[in-house]
């Protein structure tokens, strides 16, 4: 079936599904639904390990997610209707999803492929400030620090703290202007690094459909770039998001669906987060028809993704997808720490090792300092995150788990302190566009340490 036909059937459901109160959806469909399948499929993670290696458990989580999705549906907040799908429709969407696509252009084009658990083939590496606010004067040099990293297969921009000196307001003309400014500045940074063909994941400034529909068009982001469409936590969508999907499908763009469940939220603990990520990814394949899916589950108080419970969930989701489908999957390293700190690099070690060993197709990072401190991000941590992901490819899950647990011991004591580190201007010599000696020394020192732990980094 053509993609537009599939999307039209989704839109039909948006206007004909059962009407449900949103609070009832949260309580009954999501919270009670997750609890039901966790009990039914007897899902309990091994707290002694971060990387879960019980494949029977992992496959049960996959089955639980499908069961949950069939019962829960997806809530459309504009119409207050449920979009529901049968097992047959889920199966058809899984079959239709791609397992191998080309992203980017020319010499910067990359093949984005499905991986297996403990796959010796390295995942692709995505990186950038990933929504971190960047000041206008620093935007191009910071983005250049990412584009110039050869290990990067795709770049994810930061957001503009201001646009032409003005604070950007969602759903205003400023969103359109800022989205175009993002394109212009990203293209400038890519040209400076001579990597104009690299796929860019955007539009970061498109908080509504306005920015997306304008900046993904002539002169803006290309079909070979990666167009972002989110699922709202938990299990919700709206017309803004479906507008984005409809537009990008018509553009024949590479679409990435992302969904970030909250630990301790409606799904409860790590087991519920795993069920929600899988169900959300399947839901996005049903309603947005994306090329690939991504997640950065979030801690409710620290806002990071590198806590042990979250990484347990990620290890299960990565393996469940690899074992039961050919979906292209991706997870984001979102540490509490920022540039210049050892703890940032240890957080990368933990997450990128989990992601790579458990079969994810792409490792994304690093959203330093959880992406909220202006200009606190550099290309070096993304290089490191990618190097870890490459090195961990082919490790057994047992080997990987040992490394992850050692890394957690290094940063766990400082997590609550949120060591956001230093800004880009203090971490890089912008004359030569290279990390300062001090930041590079920290990188080398941590790299040496994890090599001693058995992570085969070059």
């Amino acid at each position: 079936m053509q993609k537009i036909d599939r999307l039209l059937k989704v839109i039909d459901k948006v206007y004909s599904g059962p009407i449900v109160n949103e609070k009832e959806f949260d309580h009954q469909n999501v919270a009670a639904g997750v609890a039901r399948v966790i009990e039914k499929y007897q899902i309990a993670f091994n707290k002694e390990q971060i990387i879960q290696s019980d494949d029977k458990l992992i496959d049960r989580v996959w089955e639980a997610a499908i069961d949950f999705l069939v019962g829960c549906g997806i809530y459309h907040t504009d119409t207050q209707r449920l979009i529901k799908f049968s097992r047959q429709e889920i199966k058809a969407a899984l079959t239709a999803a791609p397992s191998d696509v080309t992203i980017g252009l020319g010499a910067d084009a990359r093949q984005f492929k499905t991986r297996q658990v403990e796959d010796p083939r390295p995942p692709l590496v995505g990186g950038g400030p990933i929504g971190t606010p960047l000041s206008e004067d620093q935007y191009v040099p910071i983005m250049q620090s990412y584009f110039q990293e050869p290990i990067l297969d795709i770049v994810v921009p930061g957001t503009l703290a201001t646009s032409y000196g003005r604070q950007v307001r969602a759903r205003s003309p400023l969103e359109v202007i800022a989205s175009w400014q993002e394109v212009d500045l990203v293209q400038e940074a890519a040209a400076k690094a001579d990597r104009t063909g690299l796929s860019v994941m955007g539009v970061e400034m498109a908080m509504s459909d306005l920015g997306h529909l304008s900046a993904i068009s002539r002169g803006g982001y290309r079909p070979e770039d990666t167009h972002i469409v989110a699922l709202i936590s938990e299990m919700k969508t709206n017309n803004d998001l479906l507008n984005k999907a409809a537009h990008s499908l018509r553009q024949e763009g590479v679409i990435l669906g992302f969904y970030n469940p909250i630990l301790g939220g409606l799904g409860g603990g790590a087991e519920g987060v795993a069920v929600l990520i899988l169900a959300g990814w399947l839901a996005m394949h049903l309603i947005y028809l994306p090329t690939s899916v991504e997640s950065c589950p979030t801690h409710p108080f620290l806002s990071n993704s590198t806590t042990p419970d979250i990484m347990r969930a990620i290890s299960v989701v990565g393996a469940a997808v690899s074992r039961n489908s050919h979906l292209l999957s991706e997870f984001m390293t979102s540490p509490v720490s920022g540039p210049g700190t050892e703890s940032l690099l240890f957080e990368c070690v933990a997450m990128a090792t989990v992601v790579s060993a458990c079969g994810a197709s792409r490792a994304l990072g690093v959203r330093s300092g959880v992406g909220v401190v202006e200009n606190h991000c550099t290309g070096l941590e993304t290089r490191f995150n990618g190097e870890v992901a490459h090195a961990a490819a082919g490790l057994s899950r047992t080997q990987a788990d040992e490394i992850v647990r050692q890394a957690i011991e290094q940063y766990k004591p400082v997590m609550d302190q949120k060591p956001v580190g230093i800004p880009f201007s203090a971490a890089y010599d912008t004359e030569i566009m290279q990390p300062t000696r001090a930041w590079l020394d920290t990188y080398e020192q941590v790299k040496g340490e994890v090599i001693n732990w058995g992570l085969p980094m070059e």
Partner: protein
Amino acid sequence: MADVEKLQGELSELLLVEDPDAGLAWAEETLKGDIGVTDFFNLVFTPAMAAVGDKFGRMEIFLPELMDAADRAKRISEEVLQPMMAASDSDQELIRGKIVMASVKGDLHDIGKNMVVLMLRVNGFEVFDMGVDVAPRDILDKAKEVEADIVGLSSLMTTSMPYMKECVELRNGFGLKGNFSVIVGGAPITAEYTAEIGADSFGKNAVEAVERCLALLDRPAIE
């Protein structure tokens, strides 16, 4: 005199058990004993709810349990405490303050905001939850309508943060600065930003939001 610490512990447990009516039945039975309704409210009910909130803050329980506990506490308040206080002519306030909560325009994130709403409710606040993507003028109108003590604004995105500033400007522009305080929160919000836009306080997370709201009302933290 009843052992209030023991009673606090019993109620905080009963707010979390499988039987949704257990706490209600227990409260009715306990109030037949030697503790008055005012003491029960101040020394048992309010601290027990705060203890449930603390468990969430330590991630010993999760949002679904917090939702259940808030619903059960509301029933105890409405079905047991309020009728008894009305009958006894008590002037005891059953709420610690009125708060209007919203995720501001352009922001669709609701779980963090919902966590704050529930934490406020279990800590004795009456919360008017306006949901997500709410325009500044609508927030202001709601605050006036319910005579709010505090307006709580959530934003997880830099592109929605300017609408927090608009809310503060509208409040001040309409001469309502003395009527209610504005507290802001969300991952990108800092103390500096709070001061810059003229908001009165900010909370880094749901636990801190409760502490700051109590401080805004000059109320002591619940022991």
